[in-house]
């Protein structure tokens, strides 16, 4: 792990260029470099990364919900990888809580297709220009976006001896 986190020198040109051109703020935690990019400029910044700095793979794309605060409420996290220099670089884009939407990364990295469908399904963030935005993990008519912090976990009360019959009456039972 020491080898991975010491690679900062090779990342510096890419980080400096992105921060200047796209008004990003870079930070580092435990060897991982993160750049907070404004949401409108993320796709352009990713194109620059891919073309000029050889970051050829979008390793992961996910979203984090900071629920009680509404500006910003969501952060979309993009993690890029370069097969030539073996380095990871993270972008974060901040979105507000009411009707969050952002341009799709599919045009730059095609594999963002399913990842953005999953973010739409579980977090409710719309992606403009996505070719096929529909639910992927939950059934098609499901209501709500489960991974948001204000969506309940949905657990069932555990049956102990004192509430055994009471829960049994409520629990559905399959019949032939």
């Amino acid at each position, binding site marked *: 792990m020491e080898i991975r986190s010491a690679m900062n020198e090779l990342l510096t040109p890419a980080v400096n260029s992105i921060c200047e051109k796209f008004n990003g703020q870079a930070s580092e935690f435990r060897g991982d470099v993160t750049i907070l990019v404004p949401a409108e400029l993320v796709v352009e910044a990713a194109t620059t990364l891919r073309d000029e700095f050889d970051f050829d793979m979008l390793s992961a794309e996910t979203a984090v919900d900071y629920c009680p605060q509404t500006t910003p409420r969501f952060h979309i996290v993009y993690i890029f990888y370069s097969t030539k220099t073996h380095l990871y670089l993270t972008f974060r884009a901040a979105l507000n809580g009411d009707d969050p939407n952002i341009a799709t990364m599919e045009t730059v990295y095609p594999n963002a297709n399913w990842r953005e469908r999953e973010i739409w399904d579980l977090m409710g963030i719309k992606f403009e220009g996505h070719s096929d935005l529909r639910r992927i*993990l*939950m*059934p098609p008519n*499901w209501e709500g976006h*489960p991974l948001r912090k204000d*969506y*309940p*976990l*949905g*657990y*069932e009360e*555990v049956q102990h001896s004192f509430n055994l019959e009471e829960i049994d009456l409520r*629990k*559905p*039972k*399959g*019949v*032939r």
Partner: protein
Amino acid sequence: MGIEQKLGNTGVVTTTLENAVNWSRTNSMWPMLFGLACCAIEMMAAQAANYDMSRFGMELMRASPRQSDLMIVAGRVSQKMAPVLRNLYDQMPDPKWVIAMGDCAACGGVYNNYAVLQGVDEIVPVDIYVAGCPPRPEGLINGVVALHNKVKGERFAKWK
């Protein structure tokens, strides 16, 4: 007693109808291939050479529900899969039995949340529950033997 003394060595056996039918049902119960998750791997291990299930007549896992009698629900049942499972159960012809293999099929297992059905007995009637996460292949075979004993005890009134 009277009839058996007269038969001698003619090669005829007498038994009750219930015993004969139950014997034939247990000796070649064909399971339907319904491995969903991790328990499916242990079910495959139970079918392989070390813990052979073909000694119970079960090596032939039929993919089609119309040709099988036993549904071993092996693995967690999610919200999207539940109606499909019920559909397949309805397509199986009588007599049919269900074994809920593993903790997730029996009671929801480790997962108590929005996405996993808390026990497959919410949608189909289960005959035998096999506990474990995943149950050892010997545990599954124990469940199968328990099901055989249960079927051997079935009486006229239970048959449809």
